[in-house]
C-alpha cells in the first residue's frame, strides 16, 4: 500500500496546532514513516503544491482574500480535509471581532493605515467550513495531539473518525475532580464537547468551552445555573464567547435561553 500523501497547512492562528504535531516527539519519526508529508511549511523547505493529497490537515482560520483562494485550491486536490484547532473549526479567538464594528476595530489597531492583508470586510475571521467543505473537525485550543494521532490512525485504517458527543464532565468525573459547580463556581464543561481529558478542570481551572458545544447542549439550563451563581449577562456572554464564539449556540446563548423560557412559559401557566 502506498503511503497516503498528507499536507499540513497553517492559516491565521497561533501555529499551536502545527506545533503540537512537532510536539509529538516520541512518535514523530513513526508518523513520518507512516505517511508521506508533501507539504509542511513550518517544518520543511521543499513543499509540493501540485500533488493530489489524500489528507489535508488545516490549522488556522480564513481571514484574507488570498487565503480564501488558497484553501479552495487545496480543497480541489484533497480527498479528506481535516480542520484542527479552534481557528479552523470555529474561526478562533479572532472571530470575536464579530461582536464589534470591524472597521472601528481595525482602526483601533492599525490607525489609518490601509492594510493589504487585513481581515476582509465585511467578513470576520472564518472557520474553514465556512469557505470549503470539511470532512472532520478536531476542535480544541490547541488541538489535542493524542486525538490527532487517533484520527490519523483511523484514516490510515479506513475507519471513521469517532468523536463521542459527550460533555467534558464525562472525562472530568472519570478523573475524579471536584465539580466547579459543587464549589460554587461556573464551569463550561457541562455544555462543551469532551476529548481534552478535562484538562482545564484537572488543572484547577474551570472549562472555558474551547472544544465548542456538545451535541444538543442544554444552553438554557447552563444559563440558568450561571445566573444562580451571580453572573451578569455580560459575564455570561464572556464565558460563552471566548475561544469558540463561532459556534452559534455559544454566540447566541442568552437568546437561546430567552427563547426556551418563552416556549416553556405558556406550559407553566397551563399547569
Amino acid at each position, binding site marked *: 500500500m502506498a503511503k497516503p500523501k498528507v499536507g499540513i497547512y497553517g492559516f491565521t492562528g497561533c501555529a499551536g496546532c502545527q506545533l503540537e504535531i512537532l*510536539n509529538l516527539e516520541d512518535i514523530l*519519526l513513526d508518523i513520518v514513516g507512516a505517511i508521506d508529508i508533501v507539504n509542511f511549511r513550518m517544518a520543511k523547505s521543499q513543499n509540493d503544491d501540485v500533488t493530489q493529497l489524500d489528507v489535508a490537515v488545516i490549522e488556522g482560520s480564513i481571514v484574507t482574500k488570498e487565503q480564501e483562494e488558497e484553501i479552495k485550491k487545496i480543497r480541489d486536490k484533497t480527498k479528506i480535509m481535516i480542520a484542527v484547532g479552534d481557528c479552523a473549526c470555529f474561526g478562533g479567538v479572532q472571530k470575536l471581532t464579530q461582536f464589534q464594528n470591524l472597521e472601528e476595530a481595525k482602526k483601533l489597531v492599525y*490607525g489609518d493605515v490601509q492594510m493589504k492583508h487585513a481581515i476582509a470586510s465585511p467578513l470576520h475571521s472564518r472557520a474553514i467550513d465556512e469557505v470549503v467543505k470539511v470532512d472532520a473537525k478536531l476542535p480544541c485550543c490547541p488541538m489535542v495531539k493524542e486525538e490527532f494521532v487517533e484520527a490519523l490512525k483511523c484514516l490510515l485504517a479506513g475507519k471513521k473518525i469517532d468523536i463521542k458527543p459527550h460533555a467534558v464532565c464525562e472525562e472530568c468525573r472519570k478523573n475524579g475532580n471536584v465539580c466547579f459547580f459543587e464549589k460554587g463556581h461556573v464551569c463550561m464543561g457541562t455544555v462543551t464537547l469532551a476529548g481534552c481529558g478535562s484538562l482545564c478542570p484537572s488543572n484547577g*481551572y474551570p472549562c472555558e468551552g474551547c472544544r465548542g458545544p456538545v451535541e444538543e447542549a442544554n444552553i438554557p439550563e447552563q444559563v440558568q445555573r450561571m445566573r444562580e451563581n451571580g453572573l451578569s449577562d455580560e459575564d455570561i456572554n464572556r464565558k460563552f464567547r*471566548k475561544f469558540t464564539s463561532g459556534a452559534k449556540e455559544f454566540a447566541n446563548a442568552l437568546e437561546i435561553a430567552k427563547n426556551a423560557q418563552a416556549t416553556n412559559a405558556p406550559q407553566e401557566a397551563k399547569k
Partner: protein
Amino acid sequence: MSENPNQLEVHHITRVEGHGRIIIDVKDRKLEKVELNIIEGSRLFESWLRGRRLDEVPHLVSRICAICSAGHTAAALKAIEDASGIHASETAVKLRDLATMGEFIQSHTLHMYCLALPDFLGFESVIAMAGKLPNEVKLALKMKKLGNDIAQVATGRAVNQISMNVKGFSRVPTKEELQGLLAKLKEMRPFAEKSCDIFAGLNYPNFQRKTEYIALHTPKEYALYDGKIKSSEGWKAPVSEWEQKATEQVVAYSNAKQGVRNGHGYLAGPLARMNLNQKQLLDAAKAKLDAGPIKFPSYNTFHSNYARAIELLHCFDKCIAIIEDLIATGAEKGKVDYKEYALLAKKFSANKGYGAVEVPRGTLYHSYAIDENGIVTYANVLTPTAQNLRNIEEDMVAYLPQLMDKTREEICHAAEMTVRAYDPCISCATHFLEVEFKD
C-alpha cells in the same frame, strides 16, 4: 520564483512559524531593494481584548503565539498585576520562571535542530536530516520534549498555559513531578553541553553588521524573566516606558509598531542578550563560552544560533536550580484557589500596567489599562519578531550584495537563512502588526 527576471521572490519562507514572503529586486547584479512581506492574516487582539475581564486576559493572549505562549502569559500577568495591584507570591513567580525556562528549552531546541541546523548541514528538513543523523535528531527531539514536559508540569499544558493565572497557580506540580523533571534534566544535560560544541563548530557566513541591541538586563542574573530595558547604545529604561522607547519612529515610517529607533532597526533576541548580559550567565554556560571559538559581543547575526546553544545550557542549570529550590521549599505556596482570581464583583482602581519578559526571540512587552470593575479598556502588545522585522531587512540589504555572483537559488536560500536566524514568529507578530512595504 517570480516571473520578473530581475525579481527574486521567496513565496513562502519555510521553517518559520507563520507566513512571510521575501522580495528581492536585483538590477544588473546589483541589489536594488529587499522587502519582507508579512502575509499572515491579522487577528486584532488589541481590539477585542477591550471589554474582557482581567483574569481572562492571560489565557486569551497565550493564543497570540503557541511557541512563546508561556512568555505571553507571563508578560500579560505581570502587566495585569501591575495595573490591578494584585501580587503574586514568591513561589508563583518561581513557577512562572520555570514555565518560561521550559519554553526556552523547547523553542531553542526546535529552532536549533529542526529549523536551523538543516541549513548549515545542507538538508531539506529535519526529517531528511533524521536519516543521516538519527542519534542527534532523536536526542534533540528528546530535549525538545523535556522543554515541553517542564512547561506542562508547571502549567498544565505545554502550549497555551492553563494553571498559570493571576496571583498564582490553580494547580501546582507535585514533588514527584518535580523530581521526575530533575532526573530528566540531569540525564539530558550532557546533550545540552554537546549542543554548545555542535553550534560552536558550524560554518557561519562571514557577515558583520553592527546594529543596536536591546534586551532586559539585571545585574542579579542573566535577565530572562525580569529586568530593565537596556540598549547597546548605553541607555536604560524601566519597563513602564516601553511604549515610548520601542515605538518612537512608528509615525515617520507609517508602519504600525515596527521596531524602529532613530530611523534604523534594532535587534532583540539571543544575540542581543548575549552581547549585553553574558557576564550574568551561570557558571557552566560562561565556562563553555570562554572555552569556545566565538566571542561576544558579536555583530554576526548568524551567531544567534550559537547564542541559543549557550542559553540552552544556561536554562538547563537555571531549571535545575529552580526545581531544587521548589522541592526544598514546596511548590504548594504558589497555589491560589480559583475563587481568588475569579474576580467577580471585585473593585479596582482604574490603572495602567506594564510587563515584559524575555522570550526565545527577544523582549516581549505587554501593557493593559483596566477600569474599576477589572475590565480591560486598553491593550498593547509588542512582540520580538515585530521588533526585529526592520533589522532583518537591513541585514539582508547589507548581506545579499556580497552574494550577487551566486545563483538565484543560492541568493534566495541565503535570504531565507538570514530571516531564519532571527527565528521569527510571524503569527506572533501579526496580531497587531501589518507590514506593508510595496505592492
